[in-house]
Every structure is written in structure tokens, then in C-alpha cells.
């Protein structure tokens, strides 16, 4: 008797729940579509790391932009606009940057946004050991003039500073939370949204809800969800069924799949270039690479058009330079600096004393070098006598071997093309992560120093000279810039962000 009644109650509750779900808009696949106008569902392949801004890197920006504001806003076209800082100016030596801070802004926990908060954040970012901490390596100290004015004092001029302040380094968290471990999962900023920790599954789906008392324009969506996936197939399925509203697609086949759906809009853009980075320009590990003729020969031996057609179905632009069209210093003619010319490659190799060719060992990285790519490159280089040997490596083992053990003279990599020349120089030219053998030459040293010292908008000529030099010296053997697509459904409009793989969170708006 008792059991039956309980059972009846359970059944009734279940039915009620089902009915409620069906009549409302939350039930099943069809329901999700109905909520669109006030919800934005983003799919991404970038797994969120910590939400502690001192640990932030550029690739995870959309996650941070929901809860944090940056000091400077970087607009879709790459220009800067006020955000938490309303004004900024350099002194004549370009070693002191004065910021005027917005007034009346508070963090979610109620504490006020002021000069002390900015100082605490910037110092914590510089010293916090995060992945982008080097962005502020030039920062000597932060002087708090008053609650709404700070001065960033630099060791030397840093043309990338404004970019950094509009990026990871510019994120500002509540000073009371800085240094706390909880910040990683319970972020506290001045941003347009707060993290709904109850609905969020850290590491896979983040749910953000609109803040009622945001200082700026009311956020476009009541709810924003960012879900990370392991494969783009799932993302495209989500887009097709309306469970996701927008995503960036990198793989060609999934781009095609999304384009075949008439309800989805695809905007093409280029961000990364893919190519061979020749680290060992002094020939320490692989003697042949120390000869510029050999490096040039490699460039001539690569049939870029064939690679682009075969590997990316023609989606992209072949190039021989690592500068992108949006980067000061880009020179269109350099895209074709090394046309496919195996005869010339052979001749150069012979001149360098490698008529019989040589062997180059490269790491094969899951996710970057596909099986098809390694086969194609091997076949192409084999034609001029260069034997490629591929070492298959796994994620973190690969990092260890490439960067710490310096086990390879080069690698195939995708590198982003920033909107300012200095970032490119810092990331790929100067000794550092992608110049781990620390090779340089007088021309490079001289030009890099000049670029570092001049304002970003005046660096064009020197950047171009450096670009030409590096192409001529064949530091790299780029293949092509890859076309990515920003896919949106009918409910949302989005604008690609210059110099970024993903749009800023601010650049999504309801379509209606």
C-alpha cells in the first residue's frame, strides 16, 4: 500500500516534469532553439584553463572577457579604445605609460576598481609565472598617482605594451581575490557577466549570466555559454542542431560541412600560418641547416600550391613570409618569394656541398602534422635529395623534447600573425621559445632594437626590412596562411577579431 502510493507520487512527479519541460522551452533539441535571442552558445576547441587572470593567455580570451574587463579594449579591427582605462599616454622616452582609470566601477565582490587594484593585478601578472607573464617583462614598477591615475614605469620601451594591456595582461581581477586559489574557478572581475558556478562544468562548459549593474553598455545576452570540445565534428553537429550559435572552424572538412548547411553563415578569415620553422640556423644540431643555401633550397623544394590544394583543399593563401596581411611590415610580394623550383633547390644544395642530400629529423605532432602532411613533405623534399625523418611525439612529451631538450633542428608549426610587428619579432624572431637555439645576426639585432624603440604605428619600414631579411635568410619555410571560418547561425552576428583566432566576446550581437 505504502509502496504503491510512493510509486504513484514518483510517476506523477515525473510526468509533471516532462510536461513542464515540453511546454516550456527547455526540453530537448527543439527547445534550445527557442531561447536564442537572449542566449549565446559558443563552441570552441580551446579548453579553458584557470580563470585566474594572472594565469591567462591570449588564446583563452573569450572565457576571461566574460567576467573580466581589460584596461584597454582592442576592437575587431585591431584599434584600441577605452575600457577600464579611459585615457593613456606615453612619455617622450616611451618608458612611462600613464593611465587614467574609469571611475565608479566595482568588482562583483563590491570592492572598488582603482589604482591600487590595477597595480596589484599588473604586478601579480608579471610575477605570477603565468604563460604570458613575459608580456609584462618590461614593466619595472607601477606608480599609483591617485585612485584614478597610475603610471606604468618600464625598464625599456615596449611597443607591444598596449596590445598586452588589451590582452591577457590587461585583465583586472578583484584585489581581494588576487593570489587566492579560488580565483581559478570562482572568478571575480568588473566584466559584463558573472560565472554561474552551479551550471558550469569546469573544463567543459562555462555558463555566464549577465550582470545587472555592469558599468558599461548592457551586455548583449542574458546568458553566454562557452563549451569546449575535443573534435570539430561535435561542434558542427551542435551548430546544425542549433545547440551552438557560433564557433570557429579550423579543419577544412568541417568547414565544408558547416557551409553545406544553409542556415549557417561562414565568414572566412586568416590568422595562422603553417610552415616549417628552421630553428637550427647555426647548424649546431644539423650542420646542413647552418648554410643559408640549404634553407633556401628547402623553401624552393616545397610545392606550396600543391600542399594548400591537397591538405587544405585550397582554403588559404600560400606564403613565404611569417608576417600576416594585418601586420605592419607585411609585403605582399614576399608571399611568392620562393616559388616551387626543385631544380633551383638541387642547384643550391649542390653549391652548399649537399649534392647527395642530407637527412632532417622533425617531430611529428598529433594535431599539427597530419599523416598526409608528413607524407607529402617527405615526398616533395625527397625529390631534391633531402630525406625527412619523422619522430612521432605526444603532447607534453613533445614539448619536453622540442623546447627543453632542443632535440630538433626544426618543426612544423602553426603560428598566429599578430597585428603589431613587435609581437611577431618577440615571438618568432628573437631568441626565445621559437628561436630556442638563440640564433641571430647583426641585421636582425639592429632592426629588432629599432622596432622595439619606436611607436608601433611607426615601425612599418623597419619591420618590412626585417621581414625581407628573414625571408631572404630563409629562417622559416612557411607553407600557407590557413583559412578559418567563423560560423554563425541565424540568431547571431559576429565579427572576426584582427590578430586573433577568435572574436572578442563583445563582437557577438543578436541578429534581430
Amino acid at each position: 500500500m505504502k509502496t504503491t502510493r510512493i510509486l504513484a507520487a514518483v510517476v506523477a512527479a515525473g510526468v509533471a516534469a516532462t510536461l513542464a519541460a515540453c511546454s516550456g522551452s527547455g526540453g530537448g533539441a527543439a527547445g534550445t532553439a527557442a531561447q536564442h535571442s537572449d542566449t549565446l552558445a559558443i563552441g570552441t576547441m580551446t579548453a579553458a584553463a584557470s580563470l585566474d587572470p594572472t594565469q591567462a593567455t591570449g588564446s583563452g580570451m573569450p572565457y576571461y572577457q566574460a567576467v573580466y574587463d581589460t584596461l584597454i579594449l582592442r576592437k575587431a579591427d585591431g584599434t584600441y579604445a577605452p575600457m577600464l582605462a579611459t585615457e593613456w599616454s606615453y612619455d617622450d622616452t616611451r618608458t612611462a605609460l600613464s593611465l587614467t582609470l574609469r571611475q565608479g566601477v566595482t568588482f562583483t565582490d563590491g570592492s572598488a576598481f582603482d589604482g591600487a587594484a590595477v597595480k596589484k593585478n599588473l604586478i601579480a601578472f608579471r610575477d605570477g609565472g603565468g604563460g604570458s607573464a613575459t608580456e609584462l617583462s618590461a614593466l619595472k614598477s607601477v606608480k599609483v598617482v591617485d585612485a584614478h591615475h597610475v603610471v606604468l614605469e618600464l625598464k625599456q620601451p615596449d611597443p607591444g605594451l598596449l596590445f598586452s594591456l588589451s590582452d591577457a595582461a590587461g585583465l583586472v581581477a578583484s584585489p581581494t581575490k588576487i593570489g587566492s586559489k579560488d580565483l581559478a574557478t570562482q572568478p571575480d572581475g568588473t566584466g559584463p557577466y558573472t560565472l554561474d558556478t552551479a551550471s558550469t562544468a569546469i573544463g567543459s562548459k562555462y555558463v555566464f549570466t549577465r550582470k545587472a549593474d555592469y558599468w558599461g553598455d548592457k551586455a548583449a545576452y542574458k546568458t553566454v555559454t562557452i563549451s569546449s570540445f575535443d573534435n570539430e565534428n561535435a561542434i558542427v553537429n551542435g551548430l546544425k542542431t542549433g545547440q551552438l550559435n557560433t564557433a570557429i572552424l579550423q579543419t577544412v572538412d568541417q568547414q565544408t560541412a558547416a557551409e553545406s548547411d544553409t542556415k549557417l553563415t561562414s565568414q572566412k578569415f586568416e590568422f595562422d600560418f603553417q610552415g616549417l620553422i628552421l630553428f637550427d640556423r647555426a647548424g649546431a644540431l644539423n650542420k646542413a641547416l647552418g648554410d643559408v643555401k640549404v634553407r633556401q633550397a628547402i623553401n624552393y623544394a616545397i610545392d606550396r600550391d600543391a600542399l594548400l590544394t591537397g591538405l587544405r583543399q585550397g582554403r588559404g593563401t600560400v606564403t613565404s613570409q611569417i608576417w600576416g596581411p594585418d601586420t605592419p611590415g607585411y609585403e605582399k610580394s614576399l608571399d611568392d618569394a620562393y616559388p616551387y623550383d626543385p631544380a633551383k633547390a638541387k642547384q643550391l644544395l649542390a653549391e652548399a656541398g649537399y649534392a647527395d642530400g642530407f637527412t632532417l629529423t622533425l617531430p611529428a605532432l598529433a594535431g599539427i602534422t597530419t599523416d598526409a602532411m608528413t607524407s607529402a613533405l617527405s615526398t616533395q623534399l625527397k625529390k631534391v635529395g633531402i630525406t625527412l625523418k619523422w619522430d612521432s611525439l605526444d603532447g607534453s612529451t613533445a614539448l619536453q623534447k622540442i623546447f627543453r631538450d632542443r632535440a630538433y633542428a626544426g618543426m612544423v608549426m602553426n603560428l598566429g600573425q599578430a597585428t603589431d610587428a613587435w609581437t611577431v619579432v618577440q615571438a618568432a624572431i628573437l631568441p626565445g621559445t621559437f628561436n630556442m637555439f638563440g640564433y641571430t645576426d647583426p641585421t636582425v639585432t639592429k632592426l629588432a632594437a629599432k622596432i622595439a624603440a619606436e611607436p608601433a604605428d611607426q615601425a612599418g619600414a623597419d619591420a618590412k626590412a626585417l621581414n625581407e631579411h628573414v625571408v631572404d635568410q630563409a629562417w622559416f619555410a612557411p607553407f600557407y596562411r590557413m583559412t578559418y571560418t567563423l560560423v554563425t547561425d541565424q540568431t547571431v552576428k559576429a565579427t572576426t577579431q584582427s590578430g586573433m583566432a577568435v572574436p572578442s566576446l563583445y563582437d557577438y550581437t543578436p541578429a534581430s
Partner: protein
Amino acid sequence: MTTFVLRRLAAGIFLLLVISFLTFALLSVPHTDVGRALLGQNASQAAVDARNASLGLDRPMLAQYADWLSHAVRGDLGRSWFTGEDVWSALATRLPVTLSIVVGVTLVTAVLSLLLGVWAAVRGGVVDRLVQVLSVIGYALPGFLVTLVLVLVFAVQLRWFPAIGYIPFTQSPSGWLSTVTLPIAALSVGAVAGVAQQVRGSVADVLERDFVRTLRARGLPPGRILFRHVVRNASAPALTVLGLQFVGLLGGAVLVEQIFGLPGIGSMTVQYTTRGDIPVIMGLVMVSVVGVVVVNLVVDVLVGVPNPKARVA
């Protein structure tokens, strides 16, 4: 019975210790540069080294393990190196997803393979061959192809179910059902194929046992003999297989989780192991070993229900 359970649990704890040590050692061997993986390509080598040191990765493996263990016994599994999330809460959000699917698959498999297996064994002939052929097909189809086809047909084309994501039961039971149905269906194909074969074999064996003839000779109706006696006798091997299935799926649901974008422990395992997030991996190891111990215990007790000879003392 209680002593048996207690003894098994004690053995389980010992097993947990040994396996935690083995896995920890295994994870410590490869030179994975966790610091670099954490900080990305732009960090300086000094920063990477500092990060590795702050994680204790510069210390000897035994010291690291002792440290982990001393916290673990106090219920502190630490925080993820990558997301900063508490390992317990990470497991708490992920485990229900996988459990929903695995329990669902187990139930569906139990029911379907019982029906198919008994049907094939009893009817023989064409039916038997049909079930056999279906089994072979279900077995030979690569699992991810089945899953992809199901998504394409039932989610993308027909829109009957969502293509991705998971809705917790507590949030919406019907939503939960809609999100787990396709994953369960996808995994059940192979599972039913395997277990139905097993049931068919066991039932066919039992049907040949002498007592079945004797029961017939006593005038009992065939349905009663089949479902009261034959199935009961045939259930032990099937239960064992189901148990193995369950354990296997705890980690093996990864394909389906990735295709459906489900935040379960299968995809978590692949993600976090590839990155070398030791606290989370160790948490996963704990969960999986506890799962194995508990499931084995449950199976042993369950097998004893219909089978007095195997009943645990």
C-alpha cells in the same frame, strides 16, 4: 556475508594503494614538461622551470607520491594543475554523466541481450542465425562509425535528440533522458552483440541440461521452465560479462563522450592524461579502481542470488 563484504572491501583498499602507486610511478616516468604545457609557447624557460618546481615536479617520485598519499588519505585529492578546480568537484560533475550512460547501457544490454539470447537459443534455426548475424555485425562495426551515423540520422537530420551536450537529471529529467538516449543507444549496439551471444550460449547449454527434461516430464509449461529455471541458471555468466562490460565502459565511454561532447570521465581521462595533470589523473584512478572493486563485489553477490553454490559465505 558481511564478513565476506568486509574482507573484499579491505582487499579493495589494498588494491587501491598498490594501483595508486603503480599509476603514479607510471605517470612520473615520461619526461612530460607539465610546466611548458601549462604555460604555453610564449613562456620563458625560467618561468617553466619555476612552475615545475612549484608543482613539486623537481622532487623525487617517491617524495611526490608520499605527499599525494598523505593528502589523499585525508580526503584531499588536490586541485587540477590546469583548471585549478578541486579534484573532488571535478569528479563530482563528470561522474554522473558517465554513470548515466554506463548504467543505461548496462540496463539496455541486460534486457535486450536476455530477450535476443533466449529467443535465439529457444527458437534456433532462422531466428538463431539472424541473431548471430546481427551480433557479428554489431561486433564488427567500428564503434565510432555507429555513433556518428546515429548522430547524423537522429540528431542532425531528424532532430529527435540533441547532438551534443548533457543536461543533469536534477535540472530536467526529460532533458537528461534526451541527452543520454543516443549515447546509450550507440554503446549498446556492441554491448548487446557481445552479451546476447553469451546469453544464447548459456541458455542453449542450460536447455540441454537434464533437469530441464525432468521438469518437462513433470508437466510444467515451457514458458515457466524457460523463465523460472533456464534463465536463472544461465544468468551467472551473463552477469559476469555485464559486470566486465560496466567496468570497461567506465573508461571506454570516451569515444561516445567525445562525439557527443559530453563532459564525462572518459573524455576527461584522455584530456587530462595527455596533459599530464597528475592530481586529476590520480582522482580518476581512484574512482575507476573503486568502481571495479564495487562492481565485482556486486556481481559476486548477484551471481550468488540465483546460484546457491556460488553464494558467498
